[in-house]
Structures are given as structure tokens and as C-alpha cells.
């Protein structure tokens, strides 16, 4: 008797064989890229500017805050404007990953019910879309940085590891929330309030140095507080980030990524019957 190639047995919560899972995920990398690309195009389909919106969005967003700070606020503090745009753009990477991720599984119903593939592909593609949207904002920020005359230094290379941490965190959040939404659909309605709270609780409209020590202790519970603080120090002030801040962000990113992936992978075979 030959050995069976695949065996399907009753579902038990537990991780699938990881080597095969990862191999199968890796073999679908072109599909993930193509799928993300087509989803992104779909979002701007039928609009006059089409894909140009990827650049227009951050430009308009920074124009609004320019109006707020320079024109209405009457301030001429370049740091403040730089800080706001830099952190807002990074915040949108996380927020877009969350909003894309929350419906990744529930809206992929047709694909899930008719095709067998590693389901984690869907939240991954949500994060890739968020990354696609983030990349043009980096260019926009680089221009703002030059125009308003912010300082440069070698410390700015810290931006690379910080971005990596942000990506792992965004991915972990997308995976976790897509899985939660299968079981509690309410989370997608609650999400706008969650991201809005996250926006105000994080150093975006204000700088972390303006926050009292007591509040700062509480902000340990905010996964992106010290991430955004580090980002601002590096790309706006051209200083080195605080090591404590980096460790905090890394710990949160790894925690969200590992717990989210474990939760997702151990349950993904159950998704098809829950949709």
C-alpha cells in the first residue's frame, strides 16, 4: 500500500505541520503579490486619478495639517509639522493594516469555501496593501523634510529597524484581528473607534515629551506609543531612539505577531465552517 500524500482528519485546535504550511505559503508568494495588487487597484477603480491617489492622499492629508498648524495655529514650528506628518503616516500603516485585516477572512468567503490554501495569506495581503499605501507617503515625507529644513544625521538609519518592527506589529495585528472577526463580527464595527482612540492615545498630535510621567507609565499598554516616539526622534529630530522605547516596541510587535499567528494557525481549518 502506498503512503497517502495528504490525510484529512477531524479538526483539533492545534498548529498544522509548520514546514509544509510555510512551504505552501512560500509557493504562493506570486499569488499574494498579484492578489494584493488587484485589491489595491479595485479600491481606486473608477476614480479619475486612479493609482495617483496613493500619492494624493498623503499630500492632501499633510496639506490639511499645514492649514491647521501654520495658517490657523499661526505657529512656525517646523518640528511640529514634521512630527505630525511623519507619525501620522506611520500610524496609517498600522491603521490600514488593521482595517484591511479585519475583513480579510470574512470577505474572502468565496475563496475560502472553494479553494484550499494557507488562509494566513489573506491578512498578509492586507498588510502588503497597507505597505503599498505607506511607501508613497515616505516620499512625500522626504520632500516635506527637505522643504521645512529638518536636520539630517546618520542616526536616521535607525528608521530601517523601526520600520521593520512596525511591519511585524502591523502584520501581527492584521492576523489577530482577522481571526477575531470570524468569531465576533462586532469587532469590525468597533474598529473605527479603536483606531481613533489609538490615534489620540499616541504621540501624533502631540510629542511624547509633553506627556506627564504618570501617563507615560500607563502608555506601556499602548503598543504603538513608544514606536511612534522612536520614529519621530529618528526621522524628525535626527536623533538616536531611546533603547527602552525600542525594546518596548519590539516586545509588543513580537507578542502581537506570535500570539496572533498562533491563534490564527491553530484555528484556520475551522474558518470554512464559520463563514
Amino acid at each position, binding site marked *: 500500500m502506498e503512503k497517502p500524500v*495528504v490525510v*484529512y482528519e*477531524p479538526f483539533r485546535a492545534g498548529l498544522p505541520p509548520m514546514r509544509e504550511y510555510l512551504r505552501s505559503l512560500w509557493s504562493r508568494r506570486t499569488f499574494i503579490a498579484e492578489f494584493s495588487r*488587484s485589491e489595491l*487597484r479595485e479600491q481606486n477603480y473608477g476614480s479619475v486619478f486612479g493609482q495617483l491617489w496613493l500619492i494624493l492622499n498623503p499630500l492632501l492629508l499633510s496639506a490639511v495639517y499645514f492649514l491647521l498648524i501654520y495658517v490657523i495655529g499661526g505657529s512656525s514650528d517646523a518640528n511640529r509639522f514634521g512630527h505630525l506628518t511623519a507619525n501620522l503616516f506611520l500610524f496609517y500603516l498600522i491603521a490600514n493594516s488593521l482595517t484591511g485585516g479585519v475583513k480579510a477572512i470574512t470577505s474572502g468567503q468565496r475563496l475560502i469555501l472553494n479553494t*484550499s490554501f494557507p488562509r494566513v495569506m489573506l491578512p498578509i495581503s492586507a498588510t502588503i496593501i497597507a505597505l503599498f499605501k505607506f511607501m508613497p507617503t515616505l516620499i512625500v515625507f522626504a520632500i516635506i523634510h527637505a522643504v521645512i529644513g529638518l536636520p539630517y544625521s546618520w542616526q536616521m538609519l535607525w528608521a530601517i529597524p523601526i520600520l521593520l518592527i512596525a511591519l511585524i506589529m502591523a502584520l501581527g495585528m492584521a492576523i489577530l484581528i482577522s481571526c477575531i472577526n470570524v468569531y465576533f463580527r462586532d469587532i469590525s464595527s468597533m474598529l473605527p473607534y479603536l483606531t481613533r482612540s489609538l490615534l489620540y492615545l499616541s504621540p501624533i498630535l502631540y510629542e511624547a515629551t509633553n506627556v506627564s510621567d504618570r501617563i507615560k507609565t500607563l502608555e506601556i499598554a499602548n503598543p504603538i506609543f513608544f514606536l511612534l516616539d522612536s520614529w519621530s526622534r529618528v526621522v524628525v529630530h535626527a536623533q538616536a531612539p531611546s533603547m527602552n522605547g525600542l525594546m518596548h516596541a519590539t516586545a509588543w510587535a513580537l507578542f502581537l505577531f506570535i500570539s496572533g499567528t498562533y491563534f490564527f494557525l491553530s484555528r484556520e481549518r475551522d474558518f470554512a*465552517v464559520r463563514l
Partner: protein
Amino acid sequence: MISLSDFKHEHSPHSVAVSVKDLGLTYTTSIDKKPTLKARLKTLGRGKKHTRIVRALNDVSIDVHYGTVLGIIGSNGAGKSSLMRVISGIVPPTQGRVEVYGSVSTLLALGVGFNPSMTGRDNVYLGGLAAGMSREEIDSNFDAIADFSELGEAIDAPMRTYSSGMYARLAFSVAAVVEPDILIIDEALSTGDAKFKEKSLNRIKELRTADRALILVSHALATIEDICNEVVWLNKGKLMMRGNPSEVIAAYREFVDARKSASSDEDV
């Protein structure tokens, strides 16, 4: 749409391709339309069950050998699609065991993975990649797919401009180029006009070789009788009969007719 599992497999003709043993599948569906936190909280502490159990498959055992074309028939809700989903690994079984000895390609619904705002050409790639093909494989098969779909220049138009027939034709054409060890087709043969139906049927017939197993789910009994060399009849999740196509189909027809007359009697 189609999905090709990643495993390449050597096998001898007439060996077992799929072995289904004592398969049971129950769905626990919530009575509420969507499982929300509110619904959970409302029933919390009252001990009220907010789920309902549906038995989709009950003790089904089937062996499919290479070289076989197995037809699956049965009325709506008989568990045909559920069985196909378990064999292709989409839904885990509740009881029993399914062993698959080869690469499986499933064609359970047409055009899954297609994005209507992209052109037909883009969707050939999207659908093909979703099926587990590589970009190179699609490149080399692209002309064949475009020819088979008979779309002509419309292949470069966005798919939301397609008629449903055109949509289905392109979807079937993408599926038809995959050459798996085991091919599962659920109700996908009745696409397009009579001419295209004939063409897709011929394509299925071409795929009938000694080293391949085909499983077809269909309500088109004449087609099943024409193509298959074995038929399984499912009813309410149970295996009613299996064997020679004409015998099983005759029994099924008799069963359906009997039920029909019984229900028409009730009306009187």
C-alpha cells in the same frame, strides 16, 4: 475556483486515489445570522443554545481508484458539495478519515479569485496563481486558455464588462489547463451556451486517462451517464447506492419520481 495542491506524486494506474472512511461531517451553525458579541452576551448565563447542528455527511465510505471517473448525484442538500470540500481539504471532517494519494485540483465554483475590475488577461494570471500554478506555467498556457475561452479581443477588457457566459467561459478555460492527478468538478460543466458546453465536456473526456481520477458532481444525469464509469448516489448525507452508472441513475430516478408523486398526493 481551482486549487492544485503542492504535492507531486508518483502512482500506478488503478491504485487508490482517494480513500474516504466512515466520514461524518456536522456543521455547527449559529441560529443567529452572525456570531456577534451581543448575541453571546444575551444568551450568557441563560444556558440557551445559540447553535444548531446540521449533519451534512453520515458514515460515508468511498474508494476512488485511478482511471475512474466517479459521478456523484443526489438532490439538493444531499451532501455532495460537502463531500467535495472535505476531499479537497477545505473543510475538516468531524469523524472518519480521508486519504488522498496525489495532487488534487478542485473546481468547486467558477471564477473564485477573479477580480471584476481587472482585465480578463489579468484574471487569467490571478485565477491561475490562485489555483497553484506558477507564473511561467500560465505564461506558456496563456494562448491555449485565451483560445479555449473564445473571448477574442475582449480578453483585454475589464471583467465587469463581461456577460455571465463570458465570465464562466474564461473561468472554465483557466481551470481546464491544470492537469492534476485528481480533478474534482462541482457543477461547473453547465457553463456557456450549448456549443461551449459541448467543448468543455470534450475537454473533460480528454482528461479521462488511466493515471488520473475524476470526480464529477452534477444534476445532469445524462452527462454523468455518458462520462462516468461509476456513480455514487448520496441522499441526506448518506451513501444510498454505488456502482454501474445506468443502474444507480435508474434507482435515483425511481426514488425521485416516487417522492414527487408522494408529495403531489399530499397536495390533494
